[in-house]
């Protein structure tokens, strides 16, 4: 893979000295980002995602390991000699230069001919819909426009990869959603590898081809948005991406690759498991709230998971209604019910209810195949 990956990290780690102790901001990490991929580093603040990106850009030197860009070892190469460009969280536009001059800055450094610069800057400003804004200075532009200048300034150089550090963090919700779609469009249009750092799981799920979820300086899980959402590898990933319900239990029997966990008479959970799981194995099972059906009547089907419980809370969210149910299995489960069909709440606080879901919607966390 090393000859084709746009970016590859091999055993890269970063240690900081803090009050005499060595703290590993990034633990030894291997990572390969493919050509033209929209790749997200997702995690809470302090998880090492920004440090990882800054090591790719060259602003931080790894304490160990190797950084490859297009198969070339760039460890120790200064940022201005690396063929990647970055969009900063604060945009970091040059306040004393116009939008045009900001975008032309990188090309001027490469001694590109004047006519060529004019043509490429014009093209890029068109892609980010800023034609006519050439002479504006950054302070005369809105947050969204500044964001586009920052994007154009980086992309115009045709970098091997574009690194984006929480670029939408400063925008309001509407503009942020609009820019998410814009970013995705621009990425398709220019065909450049994007590495996107964010703490916003929604943003990462919407835009990314693949996501690396980071926690405590380590990648917890790397996969497509669907894999990460449907099959969280760790308890942290399950909790950080969306809302997750976790159930603890041990396997009572297995038949046909599906484990049966019995919590009470008529209360059971079915979960597909790999062969490494046997009778008595302790499992942590994740179920997404929108997969669960809630009803006051006992279910008819026998081949699905069933738990009973008492409704504790009902919250109306417009598109869905969220129920929190204390189950007899011990855990509180959250259920999302789409308001497409229900004209009124399925149950109220204090009601006894049945929760049912199909076996394929249970997923055992952290089980080796």
């Amino acid at each position, binding site marked *: 893979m090393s000859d084709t990956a746009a970016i590859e990290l091999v055993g890269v780690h970063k240690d900081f000295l803090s009050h005499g102790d060595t703290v590993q901001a990034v633990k030894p990490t291997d990572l390969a980002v493919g050509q033209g991929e929209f790749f997200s580093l997702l995690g809470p603040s302090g998880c090492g995602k920004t440090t990882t990106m800054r090591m790719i850009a060259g602003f931080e030197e790894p304490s160990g390991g190797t950084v490859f860009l297009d198969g070339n070892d760039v460890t120790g190469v*200064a940022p201005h000699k690396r063929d990647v460009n*970055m969009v*900063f969280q604060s945009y970091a536009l040059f306040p004393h230069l116009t939008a045009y001059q900001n975008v032309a800055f990188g090309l001027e450094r490469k001694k590109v001919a004047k006519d060529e610069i004019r043509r490429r800057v014009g093209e890029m400003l068109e892609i980010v819909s800023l034609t006519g804004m050439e002479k504006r200075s950054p302070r005369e532009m809105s947050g969204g426009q500044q964001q586009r200048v920052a994007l154009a300034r980086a992309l115009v150089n045709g970098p091997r990869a574009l690194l984006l550090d929480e670029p939408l963090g400063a925008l309001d919700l509407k503009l942020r959603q609009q820019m998410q779609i814009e970013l995705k469009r621009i990425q398709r249009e220019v065909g450049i590898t994007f590495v996107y750092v964010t703490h916003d799981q929604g943003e990462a799920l919407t835009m990314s081809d693949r996501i690396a979820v980071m926690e405590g300086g380590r990648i917890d899980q790397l996969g497509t948005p669907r894999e990460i959402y449907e099959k969280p590898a760790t308890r942290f990933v399950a909790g950080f991406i969306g809302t997750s319900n976790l159930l603890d239990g041990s396997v009572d029997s297995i038949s046909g690759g599906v484990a049966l966990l019995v919590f009470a008479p008529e209360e059971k959970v079915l979960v597909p498991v790999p062969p490494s799981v046997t009778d008595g194995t302790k499992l942590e099972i994740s179920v997404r709230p929108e997969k669960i059906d809630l009803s006051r009547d006992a279910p008819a089907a026998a081949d699905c998971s069933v738990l009973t419980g008492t409704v504790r809370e009902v919250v109306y969210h417009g598109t869905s209604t969220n129920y929190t149910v204390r189950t007899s299995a011990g855990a509180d489960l959250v259920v999302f019910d789409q308001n497409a069909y229900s004209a009124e709440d399925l149950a109220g606080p204090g009601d006894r209810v049945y929760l049912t879901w199909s076996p394929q919607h249970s997923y055992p966390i952290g089980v080796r195949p």
Partner: protein
Amino acid sequence: MRILRAYTWLVIAWLTLPVLVMIVFGFNDTPGRYNQTWDGFTLKWYGKVFALDELTKALVVSLVVAVLTMLIAGALGTGIGYALGRYRFRGSGTINLIMFATMSSPELVMGASLLTLFVSLGVGLGAATITIAHVMFSISFVAVVVRARVLTLDRSIEEAAADLGANGWTTFWRVTFPLILPAVGSGMLLAFALSIDDFVVTNFTAGTTTTFPLWIWGATRVGLPPQVNVMGTLIFLVGVLIAVGTTIRARSHRAG
């Protein structure tokens, strides 16, 4: 409300009265060497402003020293201020301490020790030693002003320049310097102002050279000629012009 207004006018009078007296007596039609009683209005001193050779020479020395001080202290102070504002390095704390010590140490002490230094080194006193002394005490002021500006500068702006292919040199001149230029300018003006009217340190380090303040000090014993008021007025006017110009520029910048 009325008290506040009266208070304001009192402060303004306090600040401007000495300057007004200086300006007014530049138009005094005094017959003799004493310029202390009002003898009627005249413009003749403005015509004869450079009539006193010694005074003119002293003013030229002062201007040359002040401009040199401004340039040298500006260049060195900017470097120090930038380094202190941007990096934490071995000895940065010490440099901070030395700078504030220089700014707060009494001029008498500074002047006396500079004289001792120059004499023990066998350096002939004159315009060169005055300039060295002035640069020495004004560097800290430039550095402090520049450092304050650098501290407010977003680090990632310089990183963005590096990211776009600019090496350290280009980044400084194309990005950092334009952004700290206002601070560098104020620092240099401060150095100029400190230098042109310095008396104490200059008196110790001048030898037989006479600067504008030194000449005036000497002349007060026999009476100040009105040319001193005229020159003082002109220097004051240049200062006012620069201040007004800076304000207008700052305003149009904000508005535009």
